[in-house]
Each structure stands twice: as C-alpha cells, then as structure tokens.
C-alpha cells in the first residue's frame, strides 16, 4: 500500500538484503529503548551510547542468522543488552546509575489535584529510594523488567543468565524490595 509505514518485519527483511535505509529506520524505532536498556545495564550514558551503537552494528552483521518473519525487537535488544553487559564487565568504573523522577510529569487524562500530584510524586521518590537500597543485582533485574519492559529472553541476555533463572531472580528481587518498603512507610502502598 502506498505511503503505509513499513512494519518491523518488513524493514528487517529489506535490511537483510543490504538496504541500509531500512535498517536505519528500524534502528530509529528502537534507539531509545536500546539506549535506555544499555544505560540501565552500564549505569553510564557514554558507555550506554557506545554499547547501543556497537549492538546495532553487530546486529547488522548478524542479519543472516535472523529468523525470517520473526519480530526483530527481542533479537535487537538481546544483542544490545549483550554488548552493554560486556562493556560493563570490561569497565573498571563502578556503575553509577542515577535515576531521577521527572518533575511535572504530564498526565494521560484529567490533571490531578495538586495534593494528589504531590502524593504521587512522593510515592515515586520513596519507591526509587527503596530501589536504591537494594543490591545492584536486584535493582537491575527489576529495572529491566519494569522500567525497560523487557521480556524474559531479552532480560536473560542482559543479565547473562539462563532464561529460567530470570523468573527466580526477579521474584527474589521483588521480595527484597517488598521487605525494604515494609520496613518503611507501608501505608502509602496499601491505601489505594
């Protein structure tokens, strides 16, 4: 159909035939997610940029191994996450992941009252503070699942563990997060 945006599957099919423009469009669709995943893994913006770029370049060269007709997102994220993990492992710098809650987050619907907005902001900050008290391994698995919205295969690649390990690791991390929160102000989490 004339003018219809190409699907991811169509773009990667074209890229596999050497179409750089198609691959560029595909990368554009996932560059933000890839960068954020790499940032969560590396904890450093410069490293994340390098890792994401390296991942996309590696993926281009690995296109012949891509299963025709499959969705490219998990495959791309797997390669990017792998590149990020390798960089983090090779880096002598300690991860310094600095996540902050945005001020004045736009609302999807009607604007909340100022009191509700303040409470919501406080709750987000409390949750982020609780996360910061977790071990790095726990924090990362939660961030990849809930912040980057990765699937199990993508998370397994990012963490460098077997797919079956992801569930148990996530479950343990969530348990520890609950403990940290329970030791603080539980009321804010059980009221609504």
């Amino acid at each position, binding site marked *: 159909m004339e003018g219809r945006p190409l699907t991811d599957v169509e773009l990667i099919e074209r890229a596999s035939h050497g179409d750089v423009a198609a691959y560029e469009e595909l*990368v554009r669709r996932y560059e933000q997610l890839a960068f954020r995943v790499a940032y969560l893994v590396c904890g450093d913006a410069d490293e994340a940029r390098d890792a994401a770029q390296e991942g996309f370049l590696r993926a281009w060269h690995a296109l012949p191994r891509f299963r025709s007709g499959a969705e490219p997102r998990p495959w791309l994220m797997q390669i990017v996450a792998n590149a990020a993990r390798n960089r983090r492992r090779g880096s002598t710098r300690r991860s310094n992941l600095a996540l902050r809650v945005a001020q004045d987050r736009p609302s999807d619907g009607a604007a909340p009252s100022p009191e509700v907005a303040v409470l919501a902001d406080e709750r987000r900050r409390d949750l982020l503070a609780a996360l910061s008290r977790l071990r790095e391994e726990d924090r990362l698995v939660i961030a990849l699942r809930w912040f980057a919205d990765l699937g199990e295969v993508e998370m397994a690649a990012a963490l460098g563990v077997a797919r079956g390990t992801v569930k148990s690791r996530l479950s343990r991390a969530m348990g520890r997060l609950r403990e940290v929160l329970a030791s603080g102000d539980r009321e804010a989490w059980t009221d609504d």
Partner: protein
Amino acid sequence: MTDRLDDRALEAALAELGGSLMYPPTPQLATAVAMALRAQPGRRSWSFGRPLRRGLGLGLAAALLVVGVAAAIGFALGGLRITFGGPSPESAIPSDGVSERAFGDPVGLDELGARLGFEPLAPTLAELGVPDHAYVAEPPSGGSLALIWGDRPGFAADRGSGIGVVLTEFRADIGPETFEKMLNSGVRVESVSVNEGPGYWIEGGEHFFFYRDADGEVVEDTLRLIGTALVWEQDGLTLRIEGAPSLRDALRIASSLSPLRTE
C-alpha cells in the same frame, strides 16, 4: 492495612515509576549506525529467503562478523580512512616522548611555501598565537604539515610531551587511505560540520593515526594515543586538530583558519 504489600499494586507502581523516570537524552544512534554502514567497503547484500543462498550467506556472515566487526567499519575523508574496532595498537607510540619521525622534518614557517604542494592554513586564534614548531613530511604527495603549539591559555599541554595542540594538513586529493586512524574500544565518533565541510569529532578511548610507507609498513604519525581529534575537509585539504579540550574549542580553532602568511 495489610501486612504484606500487594504484588499487583507494587508491580503497577514500578511500571508507573518507569514511565516517569528521567534518562539521559537518547543519542542519534540510527544516523551514526547508518553512516558507519554506508562508509563500509563492499557492503554485504544477501538473502535469508532461499535455503541455498542462506547457506552461502551464513558462511559469508561468519567471515564478515570476524572481519567486519573487528576491523572494517569506517569513515572516509580525502586521503584519510577512520577505522573502528581494530586490533590493539601493537606499534603504539612510546609514551616517553615525541617521535621526530612522527612529524617529519622541522622547518621554519618561511620555508613552508617551498616545501609544500598546497597553501597552508593556520589559526588566527589569539590564545594560540604563532606555532612553536612546524614539521613537513613526505609522503604523502604534496607533503604533510604539522603545526605544533605548547602550553597555551585554555589549551593545556600534555605533561609528558609538552605538546598542547597539533594541527595537521595534507592534500585531500591524495590516494585514498594514505592515512588511517584506528579507533579502539571506547572511542566515540560524532559527525560534525566544520566550516561547512564534512568532519568528525573523535574522543575517548584509544585512537591513533598512522600511515603506510612505500613498503606498506605502518608509520606512526602522531604521539597521541588518547585525546581528542577533529578531522575534516576544507578547500581541498584534509585537516585535523588534536589536543583541543572540547569540540567547541576545536571548532574555534577551525573557524579561525586563514592562509598562513610568512612575510
């Protein structure tokens, strides 16, 4: 009040938190990746649609994965090839001083007209002033000029070598890949416009320039292993500035270039 936090409430809160987090700005990865792929020699084209070709494709892919990712992704300017991810620089320049060979023969500024096959440019930036040293090397055809400044305000010199800024110039119409710049892990390349011409800003990690002599041997061309470099084409020349503390400073130097007057 429950003693245990509700799983769904916590998951919902985490998902909601994920949507409200601030991340560093996303870089333009698509542009950088496409630029690197377009600059690649012999871009591959294969299909995974047919079994026979797929088999061939996999063999080719395996070869390209090794050669391609390891060495063949690059950018090109006149007479200069910039290559990513190569091997570690076994011929690394000794860190204990300047290699005279790296720059060529020391010359006076008044000799440049006779020694070079092009009209040299020099910055008029007040902080830099007159260069402390000038070197001419050949090859390449037409010669290569290196202007060198020591410590200057805002352009601190390297402690080991005493060198602050190096401006190198050579003709852009010389054979391709006469000079090479090898980028190793951790190096970042940004496509920039310099004086309305194409250029690249290179920073971080290990990177070094070299050229190949008539026997194909690698000859180191600079003393710097780690630093910054702005390379671009202008007026038929390929120019590079090393040692500027930032892209902004390098662009200030570049924008102040004018024909070198030697009286």
